């Protein structure tokens, strides 16, 4: 009898719960080379955050269940495949699956392609990881947001840290993949260094092709160039290959090496990364995350659930959910407690400020659609068999991000004026 009652109660509750749930399309790499370092950690983070939010277990002000009481439901989509495929599947998510909003995209190319489509379909879309500043510098959107900082911050922060860690720096060299991410990262870093050190000598810029795997020729070139500093925006497989090949040849001992996305490799390759290497995490994430209650909740819960450290992509995903949740609930309150429309959520998210496991996020550039945050860099030190970071320096958001209305490239070339 009790079983029947329970079944009845469940049956009665289900349609109601289903009717008002918030369907969120989550798009990230589930296959291909970007899956292991970014896609899967981000997917795990999304599933963890949704589970926590649906149970009302996140710290205040995120303690309300789901989004304003409505439970969340994830529709997962693989980001692998051509941009044509991604645009097709984005349209399917919106028009066939009828999702309420979309959080996703690691690849900058995909973000650039998706943004105008999101605008055409009037669907709230929050990019969680992609880096190119072009999205909000070349166009303006009403429905598109990015709650993570742009890649400009990583390069400017890297240059500032190098200047602080090695005050007499005279020469630099680069090792970056020959595609948009590598070219932009090096371009911004080189330009920033030239402003900071006008007499700078750029020894060499090595641009091997993406996923080349073998870097012995580039390492030889860097060894013989003997620069004070080496900059690399390599990630995952390429980064690991470079660390394993450069380590025995003493490259990272000869020059101060800055790996701007090195954090994704630090847990796997901890013992191979020599002490004194500068590691970046694309913002105040992972080892650079502040010791706030959100980070305690996120980091602790993530490690307990997956027995693995969350990396910066995990942090960015969690932050993307929290930002939209805050805006959704603000819009719902303004709407008299009724479920807000995409337009109302967009209006609430625009220009908002919220707290997350990475600290304060300000949606202050790109007409209120692009986030800025502080950033942090530090050097590695093996302590008790675990790789840690020391000499951590933090740079406030305004020092590493261009002001509203100024393009990143112009801001750097202009000597960071109008701060």
């Amino acid at each position, binding site marked *: 009898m009790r079983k029947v009652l329970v079944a009845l109660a469940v049956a009665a509750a289900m349609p109601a719960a289903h009717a008002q749930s918030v369907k969120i399309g989550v798009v990230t790499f589930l296959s291909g080379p970007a899956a292991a370092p970014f896609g899967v950690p981000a997917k795990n983070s999304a599933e963890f955050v949704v589970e926590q939010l649906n149970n009302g277990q996140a710290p205040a002000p995120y303690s309300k269940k789901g989004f304003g009481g409505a439970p969340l439901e994830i529709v997962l989509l693989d980001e692998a495949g*051509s*941009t044509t*495929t991604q645009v097709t599947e984005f349209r399917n998510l919106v028009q066939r699956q009828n999702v309420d909003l979309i959080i996703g995209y690691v690849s900058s*190319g995909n973000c650039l392609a998706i943004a105008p489509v999101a605008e055409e379909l009037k669907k709230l879309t929050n990019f969680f990881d992609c880096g190119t500043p072009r999205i909000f510098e070349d166009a303006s959107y009403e429905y598109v947001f990015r709650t993570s900082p742009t890649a400009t911050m990583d390069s400017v922060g890297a240059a500032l840290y190098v200047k602080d860690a090695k005050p007499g720096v005279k020469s630099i060299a680069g090792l970056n993949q020959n595609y948009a991410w590598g070219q932009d990262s090096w371009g911004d870093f080189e330009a920033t260094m030239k402003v900071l050190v006008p007499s700078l000598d750029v020894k060499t810029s090595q641009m091997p092709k993406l996923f080349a795997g073998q870097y012995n020729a580039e390492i030889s070139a860097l060894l013989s160039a003997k620069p004070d500093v080496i900059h690399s925006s390599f990630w995952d497989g390429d980064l690991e290959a470079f660390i394993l090949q450069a380590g025995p040849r003493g490259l990272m001992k000869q020059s101060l090496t800055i790996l701007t996305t090195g954090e994704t490799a630090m847990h796997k390759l901890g013992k191979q990364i020599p002490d004194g290497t500068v590691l970046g995490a694309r913002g105040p994430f992972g080892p650079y995350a502040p010791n706030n209650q959100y980070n305690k909740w996120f980091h602790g819960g993530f490690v307990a659930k997956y027995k693995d450290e969350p990396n910066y992509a995990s942090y960015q995903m969690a932050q993307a959910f929290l930002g939209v949740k805050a805006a959704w609930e603000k819009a719902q309150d303004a709407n008299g407690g009724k479920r807000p429309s995409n337009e109302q959520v967009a209006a609430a998210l625009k220009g908002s400020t919220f707290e997350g496991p990475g600290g304060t996020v300000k949606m202050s550039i790109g007409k209120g659609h692009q986030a800025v945050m502080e950033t942090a860099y530090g050097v590695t030190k093996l302590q008790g068999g675990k790789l840690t970071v020391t000499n951590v320096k933090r740079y406030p958001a305004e020092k590493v991000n261009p002001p509203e209305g100024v393009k990143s490239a112009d801001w750097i070339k202009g000597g960071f004026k109008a701060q």
Partner: protein
Amino acid sequence: MVLVALLTGGLFLPQWAMFIVTIAFAKALVALGLMILLRAGLISFGQALYYCLGAYAAGALGRFLGIADIFVQMLAGAAAAGIAAFILGFLLAKYRGIFFGLLSLALSMILYGLLVKNETLGSTDGFNILPSTLFGTRPGPAWVRYAVLASAAVVSLGLALVVHRYLRTPLGRLAPAIKDNEIRVEYMGASARYAVHVIYVVAAVLAGVGGALAATTVGHIDPDMAFWTTSGEFIFITILAGTGSVVAPFAGALIYEIIHTTAYDLSPNTWQLSLGAALLIIIVFLPQGLWSLVSKMSTRYARHP
């Protein structure tokens, strides 16, 4: 009549389906070109070269001249691909078999390499295409998908008819002869090299139009359009479809797109596996391509009227 059916049928499609059908048209045009090449025994592993050239020609029109008219974009795509193929054809028309295939692959990868190194065109990130316009007007958001679909249908049907007629000209009939015995073709007094050159340019023009159409539909282009995996996709559609008729590539492309999107939808973690399995089954049971089903049926009807 087919056109009227297509245009009215299109009106009842949901927007996401309109998009898929339009992309299928774009890819089918490339496959149609590959089909003509295949009739002459030539497999191009680098047809993405012209697909990408067409797309970048359409994109450049918008970026540098501010023109986004669908038909002008497709013309530009056709022109860019045609001129490039005419020049490269002098080299490629000499080669057959694996040499032709690999040389065409190499050429498309050269374009890929050049685009990746070009930071003003956005490197691997590519760039966005202006929203499509039609004869100087810009259709509203509710109609833009249909406008692009209708333009795609008109152009595709027109080109399919032209190719259909071409296959029945002496030059068109030379292609299977070249495949069977090139020396005899030369003894007959025809120039195989000239015929291959013409076929190569026609196939490239079709791919260029397809590329421009894909560009204006998707709204974004990037160098991956010239990557060898893109060429592979076109070859796959061609083999899936079969070479029986000019309609085959269109049916093949549509079925390929439907299987693709269903696999993404149903199994986000293992879509490659489902896609591969579905396509493998078709190839195993229909080695002559999907069109063999249609030809089998029509011969059966012919035998038992």
